[in-house]
C-alpha cells in the first residue's frame, strides 16, 4: 500500500527549507558551479521522499520489535535494511555528539559553576567511552537485540 496514492493526502504540505537545502548542496560542489533551479527543487523533493521511505521502514521496524515509539535505533535499522548502511556510522556519531552537547548544556547550567573546562575534557572522555560502547554495540549487531518471533518474512 502506497500512502502517496491516497487521495487527499497532499505531500506538498511539508517540505524542507530551500535555503538550508541549497546550502548543503552548494557545499558539496566547487564554488563556480551553478545549480539549475529545477534541479534544486528536484533534489529537495527527493529528500522528502527519502524521509518518507525511511519513516515507513522505521515504522515497520518499530512494529516488529513491538515498541510504540519510533526510536533512533529503529531508524538506523531502517537505513541498513534499505541499503543506506553506509550512513549509519556517521549518523550515529552525530546522534551521540548531540547527546553530549545536550549533556554539556545541562551540566553548565547546573552545578558545575567553575568547571567549564573540566566539563569539556570530561565530556570528551565521555564521548570516547560512548563511541567505544557504540562500536561494541554495533559490531555485536545489537540494533534489535531480541529476536521477537518466528516471522518468516522478517527481512531479506
Amino acid at each position, binding site marked *: 500500500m502506497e500512502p502517496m496514492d491516497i487521495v487527499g493526502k497532499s505531500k506538498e*504540505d511539508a517540505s524542507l527549507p530551500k535555503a538550508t537545502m541549497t546550502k548543503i*548542496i552548494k557545499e558539496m560542489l*566547487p564554488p563556480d558551479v551553478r545549480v539549475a533551479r529545477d534541479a534544486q527543487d528536484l533534489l529537495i523533493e527527493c529528500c522528502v521522499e*527519502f524521509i518518507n521511505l525511511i519513516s515507513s521502514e522505521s515504522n515497520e521496524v518499530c512494529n516488529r520489535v513491538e515498541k510504540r515509539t519510533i526510536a533512533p535505533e529503529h531508524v538506523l535499522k531502517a537505513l541498513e535494511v534499505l541499503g543506506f548502511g*553506509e550512513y549509519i556510522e*556517521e*549518523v550515529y556519531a*552525530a546522534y551521540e555528539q548531540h547527546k553530549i552537547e545536550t549533556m554539556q548544556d545541562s551540566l553548565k547550567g547546573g552545578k558545575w559553576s567553575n568547571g567549564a573546562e573540566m566539563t569539556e575534557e570530561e565530556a570528551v572522555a565521555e564521548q570516547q567511552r560512548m563511541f567505544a560502547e557504540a562500536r561494541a554495540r554495533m559490531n555485536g549487531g545489537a540494533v534489535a537485540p531480541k529476536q521477537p518471533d518466528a516471522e518468516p518474512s522478517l527481512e531479506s
Partner: protein
Amino acid sequence: MRQAGAYSGILCGGISGRTGPHLLPLARIKKIMKKSGDDVKMISGEAPIVFSKACELFIEELTQRSWLVTMQGKRRTLNKEDVTSAVLATDIFDFLVNLVSET
C-alpha cells in the same frame, strides 16, 4: 568519516568535520515523518535528529553523483537531467525513479 570514493579528488574539504549543529529543522522533519503513512507511531524526540543527519548525507550523495554526470557532459551547471541520471544509475535510489520520471 565517509570515504568519497572515486570522485574524492574533485571536492576538497567538503563534508569532513562538519557534524556540528544539525541544519535541517527538526519540527519540519517530524511533520514529514507523520505524513509518511496512516499509522505512524509516536516519534521519539531524538529520531528527527538522526533523520536530519541521514538527510544531509543523502543529499550530499545525490548531489555528488549528479555532479559527476554534469562533469561528464563537460558542463558547469548541474541540471535536472543530471539528477535523473544519477538516480537511474544508483540502485539504492530506485525509490526515486517514479519521482524523477514524472516531471
